[in-house]
């Protein structure tokens, strides 16, 4: 995680980051490979009552019970159909494993940090507060996710932003 952040903040240095790219609806997203544990085919997910709407449920990963987030729901995209391309990307967030359901995993790529830019004010159909930056490779646009916020509730994000705003004024 720190690697990723350093890479992003230090644009002048010619360093590379490795990313796992995946698809959701028509957008291409990417996560720092350091946070990715493995990629699974979609399996049976046990629904979790009374949890956030974007929590699909829990799965068994070799004996460990881990929550799974439906990224489409997280980004308020229309729910898509599950097919043999659907994957669960297991990522590590704050020392815990979490699964992310995505439409498909496209590739693992190297990206020069100079190609990564801060998030634009609005990416079509998605939520900017969950985005860490945007990577541009020729005509492709990769949306780089801020995983730490994927599981944080809306209210908490809103609250964080308020505090952040206040601090900045001071």
């Amino acid at each position, binding site marked *: 995680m720190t690697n990723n952040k350093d890479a992003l903040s230090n644009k002048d240095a010619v360093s590379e980051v490795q990313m796992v790219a995946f698809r959701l609806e028509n957008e291409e997203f990417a996560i720092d490979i350091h946070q990715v544990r493995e990629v699974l085919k979609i399996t049976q997910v*046990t629904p979790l009552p009374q949890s956030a709407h974007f929590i699909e449920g*829990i799965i068994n990963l070799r*004996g460990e019970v881990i929550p799974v987030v439906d990224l489409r729901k997280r980004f308020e995209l229309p729910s898509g159909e599950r097919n043999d391309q659907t994957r669960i990307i297991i990522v590590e967030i704050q020392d815990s494993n979490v699964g992310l359901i995505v439409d498909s995993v496209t590739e693992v790529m190297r990206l020069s940090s100079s190609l990564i830019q801060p998030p634009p004010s609005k990416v079509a159909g998605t939520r900017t507060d969950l985005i860490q930056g945007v990577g541009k490779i020729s005509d492709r646009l990769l949306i780089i996710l801020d995983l730490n916020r994927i599981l944080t509730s809306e209210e908490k994000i809103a609250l964080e932003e308020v505090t952040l705003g206040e601090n900045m004024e001071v």
Partner: protein
Amino acid sequence: MEEYRDLFLAEANDYLQSLNRCLLEMEKTPKGEQLTEMFRAAHSLKGMAGTMGYDLISGLTHEMESLLDQLRSGEAAVDKDFTNLLFDAVDLVQLLVDNLESQDNFSAEVKALEKKLQDWGKQGQIHEHLPPVRDEQSAGDGGAGGKRIAWEDLINEFEKEMLKDAFSRGEKVYQIYICLRRGSLLKSVRAFMVLKNTEKQGEVIKTLPSIPDLEEETFDREFFLLLIGKPDIASLTQSLENISEVEKVEITKVQMNIEPKFEEATLQGDFPTDRANMQKRPTNMEEVASLKGASSPSVLENSNVVPEMDISQVIKRARTASNRTAEKTIRVETAKLDNLVNLVGELIINRTRVIELGKKIEDELLEDSLEQLERITAELQSAVMTLRMVPIKQVFDRFPRMVRDLSVEKQKEIELIISGEETELDRTLVNQVGDPLVHLLRNAIDHGLEDREERVKKGKDPVGKIYLEAHHEGSHVVVSVEDDGRGIDPAIIKDKALEKNIISPEEADKIGREEALRLIFRSGFSTSREVTDISGRGVGMDVVKASIEAINGTVEVKSEPGRGCKFVLRLPLTLAIIRTLMVESSKEVYAVPIEAVRENLYIEPQDIKTIQGGKVITLREEVLPLYSLKEILGMGKFEEQDIYPVVVVQAGDKKAGFIVDELLGQQEVVIKSLSKFVNDIKGIAGATVLGDGRVTLILDVAGLLEDGRF
């Protein structure tokens, strides 16, 4: 460094525990062994702390060590003040160990206490009722050192029989110690000569080291023989001394008890029997009066001087030694252990799958090997589960000290009688049962037991007794705390509960004796000081109950006013595995902990009544609220059916019926915690993985019933 610190902490706490235990024993009956053990503990602590650079700890333990050493040689006195001083020192070390990061804050205290310890040492009076203790080093290095090998530990059944025969013939047992000249070149030959000469006078039944070792010269220059017979000591000594290169001979008579009972005490203990270990174990070496002028002992004198062994003491020491199991255990990080348990769980799940697949193939050879696999994995599972089990002693060991301190504080004479401390349970439970027990013990001392005068007046033993007991009962561990104090009067409890509006007057009329006693577990009952003074009980009993129920246990109370009071805790053997009732609801399987299930039944639509918009059923004249599991979990809507399966559940005082789609039967499941991102869901206790790899939620009935809806 971090890693070493954890190790240091674990070991330091062990040593502190043993220091505390010895001090407590010493308060009752001062004995030499305690001093020796304490000296060792202090010494080891000092060494460890020194290596880690914890100078305050090593300084303080150094003073403790010196003082204990003086005591061992009889140069300082042991009395109440002394034990209190040492208790203070142990407490301070504990404080330092608990606050390794900020230990420098205590340097003033440490200095003051070091001074006190030094001063005490200087007073230096010899105390009569504490015999000076020597260990093997102080017994002189000039020969066998008066050492007597603990032969009892070494002889086997066959040799024992030989001894018995010999005794019946009136023969005696002698230990022969031989020391060869330094640099002897033909040690095996000399040893052979010794053996041959000795055997002229009787039968050598054992040598140390063993005969093959003597032949291969894998010994330094000393060895021992055990001889039975009626030898002529003088001529035997003469003949042995005449063998060239034999520097020293010592023959001592050995009194040996080989009754079966003794055998049990010694041979079944955890004695390392190899030589190296034996030399290290002073507790096992009986000291024979050490010989004066060890360089050239006269054997005649010798055999007369040597007193016969005090057998009871040998047994006692052998038993102390058998307490020391340290050599047989290793420390393992709990995380590694948990990982192992997890992996075995995985293995079991996969095994089930493989076996199911195997059934489809219908191959005889495959079936056989799968059966084998099933058996081995089952054994592996149970073996792994026992790794998580630790004796409840770990908790109980804290209490003697606590009770002692409280008895001083409250000026009551109390005897704490502990039994069953070897009872094992899951280590996670051991951690969680401690606080409730502290609570119960405190209550017993504070309110249960009367003071001396009152007890004498009532014709009771002036010393109050508290029994702390643990044992296994099926898949449960039962822990009880019992005192012989005032007890609890149900009538008073009832009055108080009425006064505090915990029960209504109508309820009070209906309530029986037992039920009235249980009122002390109600929340709101015991917060008031005045209640506890009258009832003699009840400080935070609701907390005790809640924490025991949180680990799927139960608490019961029994009391006879004037005679005492008994709290019985029933705990599951392990937290990791629980029995559950599997139910199906909206196509998902849920596990309901069996502890919460009262009964299962099928009801028809006409059994369901409505009160204020809520469904109820009447079950044996009891009106129970009825909920659809789907609805309370927010997983669907209640659907009309011809027949409804219902699980009647209870948590605390609340009872309810859950309508489910299907009852699936009981199953033992391994509890897994939910991820930290989703762990605060009310009504869900955790999850488990079924044989087919599916994840199933375990319901938390208390959480479900607690909800405002009910």
